[in-house]
């Protein structure tokens, strides 16, 4: 009898754990299983690799989270990354091949054989990073303006800006990668201050966003707009401004991701992040962020991004082809979404916030 009640309470405890931290539990379980199956998985080299994939992705997912909370979606993050990468790299590169770039519109205006406009300057890297982040903010602002003030559907707006700005990134550089970036820039991804620099940057952003969402009036307003924009408006919330801010922040975090990726890849790539849309949406879905708006936390974004990084990494270690990796990724997203739908249905639509 006693035994029975102990078992049930244990079961209940596990149930609670699964309901509240389902994805995190899953991620830990997956990590343990994979470490047992693949010896290379838990090696320090692979862990470093995991970390270098995880943090920039998390930056993007946090941006996506903010947009999703207000009930939107941002398909343009990948194009923001590409454009920011190209703009930043062309400004600070130390030399460029005239044969390759002769036809690029930016040639001889922003950068030339002797490198970018800022090349050699003390402020080259910081100014270029500032430009990259500004590009992200501007594109995000444009998306937000079209959605919030022109009342256009977010899907179409960000689809169009994906087309336009990835087109722009390719156009500006005539579809070539810009290399020869200053080492002080590539150091962003390669140097460590106790921990790798991206960890500091993104973890700090995640904590700030978490605090904003849970402990400030602005956070509550974001959720309110996502739950019911009309009621939020009548309750005195500046709905367009809140929406605009969410999209702008998404652009900012995409650009932040771009800084880290560009530093790691040591170049400005007009095609940067082209296949990342799936990873970002996938991580958001796996984390349990609602595409209807009003539901999702930073820790969901973390859990989703972490799981997705582990998954992709373990598939790579298994030496599977790129194609099979994609098939499995697609399958896992479907599975995660199905489990989430089932779980939310089970708990009677309880709010997860």
């Amino acid at each position, binding site marked *: 009898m006693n035994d029975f009640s102990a078992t049930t309470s244990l079961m209940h405890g596990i149930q609670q754990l699964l309901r509240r931290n389902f994805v995190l539990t899953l991620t830990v379980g997956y990590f343990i299983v994979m470490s047992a199956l693949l010896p290379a998985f838990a090696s320090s080299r692979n862990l470093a690799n995991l970390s270098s994939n995880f943090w920039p992705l998390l930056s993007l997912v946090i941006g996506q989270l903010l947009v999703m909370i207000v009930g939107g*979606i941002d398909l343009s993050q990948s194009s923001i990354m590409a454009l920011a990468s190209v703009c930043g790299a062309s400004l600070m590169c130390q030399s460029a091949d005239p044969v390759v770039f002769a036809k690029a519109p930016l040639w001889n205006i922003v950068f030339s054989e002797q490198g970018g406009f800022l090349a050699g300057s003390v402020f080259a890297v910081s100014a270029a990073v500032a430009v990259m982040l500004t590009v992200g903010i501007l594109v995000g602002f444009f998306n937000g303006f*079209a959605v919030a003030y*022109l*009342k*256009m*559907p977010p*899907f*179409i*707006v960000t*689809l*169009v*800006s994906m*087309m*336009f700005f*990835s*087109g*722009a990134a*390719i*156009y500006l550089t*005539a*579809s070539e990668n810009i290399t020869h970036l200053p080492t002080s820039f590539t150091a962003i991804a390669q140097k460590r201050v106790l921990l790798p620099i991206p960890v500091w940057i993104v973890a700090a952003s995640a904590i700030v966003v978490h605090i904003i969402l849970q402990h400030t009036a602005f956070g509550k307003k974001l959720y309110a707009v996502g739950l019911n924009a009309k009621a939020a408006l009548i309750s005195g919330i500046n709905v367009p401004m809140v929406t605009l801010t969410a999209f702008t922040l998404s652009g900012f975090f995409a650009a932040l991701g771009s800084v880290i990726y560009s530093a790691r890849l040591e170049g400005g790539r007009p095609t940067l992040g082209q296949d990342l*849309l*799936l990873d970002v*949406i*996938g991580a958001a*879905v796996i984390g349990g962020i609602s*595409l209807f708006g009003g539901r999702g936390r930073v820790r969901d974004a973390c859990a989703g991004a972490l799981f997705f990084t582990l998954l992709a990494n373990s598939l790579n270690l298994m030496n599977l*082809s*790129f*194609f*099979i*990796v*994609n*098939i*499995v*990724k*697609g*399958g896992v*997203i*479907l599975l995660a*979404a*199905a489990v989430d*739908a*089932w779980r939310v*249905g089970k708990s009677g639509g309880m709010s997860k916030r």
Partner: protein
Amino acid sequence: MSRKLEISKSFRIDVTALFTRCMPTSIFIIVFLLFGLTSPRFLQPESLLNIAKQASYIGIAALGMTLVLITGGVDLSLGSTVYLSTIVAGLLMRDYGLSPVAASFVCLLAGAGIGGFNAFFITRLKILPFVVTLATMIAGRGLGLLLTKSRALEFPAAILKVGAFKLFGFLPLPILLFALSATAIQLFLSRIPLGRHYYAVGFNAENARRAGLPVDRIIASAYVLCGICASLGGLVAVTQLGIVNAGFGKGDEFDAIAAAVLGGAALSGGVGSAFPGTVIGALMIRMIWSGLVSAKINLYFQPMIFAVILFLAVMLDTRRNMIIARQRRKIISLRKDKQT
């Protein structure tokens, strides 16, 4: 006198309704004239026929997308469906000597299968269409690349001969198939109960369920039909190209969505038509691309202009809907009182 008042008011509403319906067409005419004025060669019959021919592939696929959009969903896997279904047919022909007719049939079947796969996850497991079809898009292309080992797949030469067929000596096969599918889908949407049910489900699925409609089956049929349309579009393209390379169909779901939206369909569901709607939308997209090419615009610059045009069209459409909604509210409030 009050009767007269009523008539004049109902007439006023009808004018706005007419304008609503004609919006895609009027944008179409404006774009057409714009390109016509900049390069007169553009207006010649051959070049127009050419545009229609080139529009056929994306147009047929966009017809399927329109069905899905009307039910309030979206199919991002359309491009991968095009790719996967055509290479299944191509491989069967190349490796197993299947006849082109049988292979075409298998191609459509594969399209229906992928649509059914999407439908299963959407209706049975209640996952958002956006998420399901995004996953299918990635996984489907992965599977296709796996099957072809990411090499281009050549089709038998006979296919190109079929593709060169012209009805009455002037109507090319793609246009013929496009016209036939557009007619069939439009009749389906306006004259078959299932087609009307799409609009009901897209307006409010819960209401439709309460009205006793089998909502899940209705939604599922839209994705299956969309899959079939996508693979038919793929077949049409193959008859023109004779070859399927690794990037075939990639990103075409966005062109299909653009065509449907330019044709007046809404992502929120419940609105849209095959003809004139999506047909006009597909022609417009093709026309813009050809116009950009004939205007000798920088290759890398073209997608940007295309994006701007799409943005402006959607913006105009949004504005217009807001104005109509505003106007309608006022008219109704006047009409209401007249009665009493």
